[in-house]
């Protein structure tokens, strides 16, 4: 299998603060890969650097075999990489349909088929196509953000916290659609998520990012079985001999 996205020793700074300290990862075509990590681990920075909104200070990013580090986002979108940003970021005063059209901004061909495709995945957007996006509920806005990303007809989609602020039920619904898109539309996904449970259920492969470094990588099954992941990300606590524990486990990342 070929790697669609290859990130090598990526470093990024916010002023003097180092947010990424040499991150390497690869995303193979057709997969869903997730990046887990606590607040401030550098997940969003990593996504922004990949999609070109931020420039890395060091390291390389190869998308479909071509160097994209430091290039402008419009060039990268045109190559087939769509970024669904954290917190939805819809255009509040444009209608739902205009938002979707903006998702296809870099394309010059006919987009009607893709509009229909998005409306088929998210029927509620069809109902509300003429309504300003700012008046949608949070879940609908997330659907719109994903649909808007799809309109670029991407090969790879970066999804930054699609469950942010959604109810557990809506989260399940969104992730079911993400799986379907991956399966039916062959969109490779790189998924950043705080909700490790649903992320590992959805993804094939996962990385754990802590303080700007990858500390663990493995298939979702392996990660889900790992003691550290179970304790620090899935919130399950092993019990000691006396049925309770009075110490904090050290992370070993094995």
């Amino acid at each position: 299998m070929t790697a669609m996205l290859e990130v090598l020793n990526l470093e990024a700074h916010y002023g003097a603060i180092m947010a990424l300290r040499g991150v390497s990862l690869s995303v193979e075509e057709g997969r869903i890969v997730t990046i887990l990590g606590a607040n401030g681990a550098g997940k969003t920075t990593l996504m922004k650097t990949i999609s070109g909104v931020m420039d890395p200070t060091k390291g390389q990013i190869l998308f479909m075999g071509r160097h994209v580090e430091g290039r402008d986002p419009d060039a990268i979108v045109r190559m087939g990489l769509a970024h669904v940003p954290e917190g939805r970021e819809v255009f509040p005063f444009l209608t739902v349909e205009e938002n979707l059209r903006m998702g296809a901004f870099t394309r010059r061909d006919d987009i009607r088929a893709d509009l229909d495709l998005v409306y088929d995945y998210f029927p509620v957007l069809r109902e509300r196509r003429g309504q300003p996006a700012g008046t949608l509920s949070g879940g609908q806005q997330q659907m719109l953000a994903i649909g808007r990303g799809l309109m670029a007809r991407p090969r790879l989609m970066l999804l930054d916290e699609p469950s942010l602020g959604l109810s557990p039920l809506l989260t399940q619904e969104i992730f079911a659609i993400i799986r379907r898109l991956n399966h039916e539309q062959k969109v490779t996904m790189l998924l950043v998520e705080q909700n490790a449970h649903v992320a590992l259920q959805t993804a094939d492969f996962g990385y754990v990012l802590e303080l700007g470094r990858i500390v663990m990588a493995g298939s979702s099954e392996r990660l889900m079985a790992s003691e550290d992941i179970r304790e620090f990300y899935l919130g399950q606590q092993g019990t000691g001999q006396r049925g309770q524990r009075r110490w904090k486990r050290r992370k070993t990342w094995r």
Partner: protein
Amino acid sequence: MELVQLLLGGIANGCIYGLIALGFVLIYKASEGVNFAQGDMMMLGAFVTLGFVNADRMDLPFLPGVALACLVMGCVGYGIDRFLVRGVFGQPQFAMVILTIALGFALRFVAGTIWGYSPLVLETPLAGVNLELAAGLAVSAADAATIVTTVVLTVLLWAFFARTRLGLAIQAASQNQLAAYYMGIPVKFVNSLVWALSGIVATVAGVLYAAKGAIDPNIGLLGIKAFAAAVIGGFGSLPGALAGGVIVGLIEATAQRYGPSGISQMAPYALMLLVLVFWPGGLFAQIRAKKV
């Protein structure tokens, strides 16, 4: 009849304020700062046109001359954003305020150096022509042209923003710059384009203003009254800017006729204060809280 006459003149003046206010709002939405040089861009647009069409200058036919001036001022607007405003992007708000105020002075001196400081008259085919609408009701061709041009320009701008891909992209970039970046919209280019557009609108306003009288490098101070119009309309709303301009024009005209002397100069600013106190978002505010 007299009142109608008065109101027509007020509306015509108001259209010019409205067009300048439109330039303010366009740039406010794109660059998130006020361009205090907007009035001076109008002044420069009028002088560039004068340079193209006056008989003792290049003596081009009127309409091609205006079109050429629009083109030149579009490039000037684009250049101002590309080489000056982009440099203070991301700096605190006042950086752009100071920059544009300084730019206004610079433009005034540029115009003064090239065209001199004494008043000049732009030769237009409209000069001295009056249209008789009804008995006792005449409107000068300049006023009629002002109103018609403003309406046409408004419709064109509306169509551009609502119907074209680029226009939508400009709206998108002004509503959520970061998201526009993610969509692959070239935000910097789009912002420069808005400056170009506002340079063109300023030129049209300048030509219409010049059609009514003489121009000198200080007419850019009209921009302050247009700023009041933009505030009254609710900064950030394009239709509001035009409406604000017309309101200011009407109030000025009626105050001049019926009020005590001096009140007409004061009236627009008094209204601005009233609006700020009672409707802080402006009369046509388009600001709603962002949903998280």
